C-alpha cells in the first residue's frame, strides 16, 4: 500500500508508510511532497527522550533545555510523552542488554521520517563503560544515528547545536 507521506506530514497523521528510508529517497520524483515535507519540518521537531542506561547527567541537561533558561520551545522543539508522536529520538546512555529490546520497540514505533540524536560520550562510543559485560557500547551499533553530542555530560548549548545541525541536515534533504 503506497502511503501518501507528504499528506500525513501536513496533518501529522501517522499513516503507516511501508516505504523504508532508502526507497523513499529513490522516490525523488515526488518533488512536491518532499518540498512540503521540508517546509513542514522547518517549523518544529518533536523529540522523544529515551534513557537506555544513562547515568542521568545527560538526561538532566536535556531536560534543562525545556526549562526557562534555555527554553527550546522557541524553536518549536517539544518533548513528547510517546514515540508515536515524535520525529527525533534523543538517546542517552550505552544501551544495556536489558533495555536492548525496548530500544528497538521504541524506534520502530516512531513514524517514518525519523532522526536519532545521541547525547553524551557513553552513547557515542561507550565512553567510561567500554568493555563492560552488560552493555552494547555505542548506540550506532543498533540505530542509524544522525548527530552525536560528545560530552560527559554535554552542555545544553551543545545539544541545541545538534538540533540546529539536524535541521540543516533535513533542509539539505539528507
Amino acid at each position, binding site marked *: 500500500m503506497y502511503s501518501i507521506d507528504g499528506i500525513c506530514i501536513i496533518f501529522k497523521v501517522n499513516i503507516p508508510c511501508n516505504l523504508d528510508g532508502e526507497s523513499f529517497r529513490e522516490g525523488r520524483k515526488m518533488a512536491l511532497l518532499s518540498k512540503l515535507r521540508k517546509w513542514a519540518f522547518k517549523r518544529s521537531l518533536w523529540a522523544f527522550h529515551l534513557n537506555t542506561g544513562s547515568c542521568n547527567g545527560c538526561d538532566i541537561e536535556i531536560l534543562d533545555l525545556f526549562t526557562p533558561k*534555555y527554553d527550546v520551545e522557541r524553536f518549536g522543539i517539544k518533548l513528547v510523552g510517546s514515540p508515536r508522536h515524535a520525529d527525533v529520538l534523543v538517546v542517552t546512555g550505552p544501551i544495556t542488554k536489558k533495555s536492548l529490546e525496548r530500544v528497538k520497540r521504541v524506534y520502530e514505533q516512531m513514524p517514518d521520517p525519523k532522526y536519532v540524536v545521541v547525547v553524551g560520550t557513553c552513547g*557515542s*562510543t561507550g*565512553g567510561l563503560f567500554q568493555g563492560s559485560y552488560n552493555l552494547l557500547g555505542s548506540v550506532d551499533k543498533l540505530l542509524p544515528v544522525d548527530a552525536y553530542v560528545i560530552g*560527559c555530560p554535554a552542555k545544553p548549548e551543545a545539544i541545541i547545536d545538534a538540533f*540546529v545541525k539536524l535541521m540543516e541536515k533535513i533542509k539539505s534533504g539528507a
Partner: protein
Amino acid sequence: MPWGTLLREAIRNLVNKPATVNYPLIQTKVPSGFRGILSFDINKCIGCGTCERVCPTNVIKMIPNEKTRLKKAPRFELSKCVFCGSCVDVCPTKAITFTENYHTAVIRKNELDIIPE
C-alpha cells in the same frame, strides 16, 4: 490559596529581566577554567606517554612522530573523551590544555579528533 505570596511573585517576575538565554544568537560566555575541547601543542610535548596511561577511557594513543624528543606523540580520539582533565593535570610540560570551546555537536564521530602533524 496563598494570594499574598503569589501576587508578590507575579510582580517580581514582571519586573525582572527574562530568565531565558537567547543562545544561538548570543553565544554564552563560559567562566575561565571551563573544561571544553582539549588543545594540544606539539612543540611542548616530549612524548613521555604518561597521559596515555592515565586516561580512563583510552582516548589517547601514542603514534610515532618526529617532532618530540622520544619520537612519539599522542593522538586524541575525542569522541571517547569524558573531559575529566586527568591528562591535563599529569602532563609534565603542560602540552595539553582545556579550551573554552563547548561546541561538541558533530555529525560524524571523528570530527573532533586531534592528530599531531
